[in-house]
């Protein structure tokens, strides 16, 4: 029944020095849809791909604001992310209340990393089943951190977690040298480019399934969804999806990416894509496995 006898709790090592429950938790992250984060000298950005569990349901929220200078994007078990982000909100408010200053991003990250590590050491607990990309801005500038249930918390210039995120990482690794000097707008477009590389072949970024958030000096944390991402999707160029090109012809691909989410893979509706936001839900091809 069990894969092995060393995965019944999160505190017992296998003879080869592994903590299986922690590794399973890391697998849970890969079940979640992808999120991508990146930083320039001035801003930090996360973009996320939302899923809806079923046709009639809403899309799972992927980005949570913590404070005016801080937010998280999640991949994995959303309830665990809620617990962590609620904790972070308390920490941020406490910092504001006691010291009258925003919570430093590194402090926020290490606070939840310590909680996650505790779960790998105390019997009767389970690791969080969620990975987070944390973006924020503090006295030291913009930051992007990756939080994992193992308790690891590392700072990145670009990072991606979740399903098929390797494709986004490949994109980021190719381009990260340019990130520091990008404007906020260029940074967001690069994030969307990376996110688009994680899509399955019959999928597109649409206003329904895309979330964008950014923060910087004098730029409070801002979360864009639905109608507000349309303009950003329009900035994507249709041919840059190199690592995972769509099967249809190049012309249609270019138009299909710009507006709402009728799957362009159907290949016949390019003329109808200027339909406004209240068009029919685009989800008939959405994956429903999260």
């Amino acid at each position: 029944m069990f894969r092995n006898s060393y995965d019944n709790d999160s505190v017992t090592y296998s003879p080869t020095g592994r903590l299986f429950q922690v590794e399973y938790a890391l697998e849970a992250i890969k079940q979640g849809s992808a999120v991508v984060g990146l930083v320039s000298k001035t801003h930090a950005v996360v973009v996320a791909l939302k899923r809806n569990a079923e046709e009639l349901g809403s899309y799972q929220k992927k980005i949570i604001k913590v404070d005016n200078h801080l937010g998280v994007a999640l991949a994995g078990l959303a309830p665990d992310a809620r617990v962590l982000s609620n904790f972070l909100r308390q920490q941020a408010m406490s910092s504001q209340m006691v010291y009258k200053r925003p919570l430093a991003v590194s402090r926020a990250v290490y606070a939840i990393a310590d909680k996650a590590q505790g779960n790998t050491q105390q019997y009767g607990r389970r690791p969080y089943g969620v990975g987070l990309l944390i973006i924020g801005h503090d006295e030291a500038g913009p930051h992007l951190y990756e939080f994992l249930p193992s308790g690891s918390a590392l700072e990145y210039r670009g990072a991606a977690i979740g399903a098929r995120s390797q494709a986004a990482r490949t994109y980021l690794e190719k381009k990260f040298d340019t990130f520091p000097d990008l404007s906020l707008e260029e940074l967001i477009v690069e994030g969307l480019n990376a996110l688009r590389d994680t899509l399955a072949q019959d999928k597109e970024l649409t206003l329904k399934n895309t979330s964008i958030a950014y923060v910087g000096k004098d730029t409070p944390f801002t979360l864009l969804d639905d109608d507000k991402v349309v303009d950003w999707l329009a900035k994507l160029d249709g041919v840059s999806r190199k690592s995972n090109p769509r099967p249809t012809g190049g012309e249609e691909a270019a138009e299909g990416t710009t507006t709402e989410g009728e799957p362009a893979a159907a290949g016949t509706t390019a003329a109808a894509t200027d339909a406004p936001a209240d068009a029919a839900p685009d989800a008939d091809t959405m994956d429903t496995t999260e």
Partner: protein
Amino acid sequence: MEQSPINWGRPRDDIYGHYSDAISQAPNTHSLPKKHTQQPTVTGSSVIGIKFDKGVIVAADTLASYGSLARFDNMDRLTQVGDSTIVGIGGDVSDMQYVQRLLEELEIEENYDNSGDQSLHSENIFNYLSKVYYNRRSKMDPLWNAVLVGGVDSKDEPFLSHVDLLGVTFSSPALATGFGAYLALPLLRQLVPYPDSYKNVTEADARAMVEKCMKVLFYRDARSIDKYDVATITKGNVKIEKDIKCKDQNWRFAEDIRGYGRTTS
């Protein structure tokens, strides 16, 4: 005293009666009524502070009085916290020492897990202190102090604020606690009558006025001494000068005072 080797050092029974062990039978402190501070015991007097164009000067004398007794004449009442803040404390000295330990702990915690992304500025320390004082007054067990926090804030602007045993806070370009609020503040306000006046005050002017204030306080505040510490905080620099004597004292007026001292008639 008992001289026999067995009970050596004990009180002799024939003189003092049998040794009473009542003290060891006394009820422990948990069953006694909890007592809150009703008045300060050993006290420091005024703390004064004034902003100038590039920073803040804070000064306090070094006397700790036990009632009207000048009990300790070398009490440091100015404490540096972080690298741009001075906390000057008047009122109960034991409460001051407790607060100094809290501030030390705050600084250690700040440095412990901080990768340098953030530092403690004056307004952060002041806000923390105001919560401590308001928390204790809300427990009806106040820390019996009046505190000035002076330094440079996160925008590199001079910072000067006051918090007291009630948790009341306020800011001004010139502040003074205790008797200084009556004797020194009017003098300091000659330099900085309006909130922005400090921008036209040089360090030398502010310093001269502080020295004048400390002398006036020594003349007229009976719980003061003519030895004081001065802290000058500017951006990136905290300078503490200890044991400065009041200069150019003039006691000629004392000759004419009748009714006490050597001229009782």
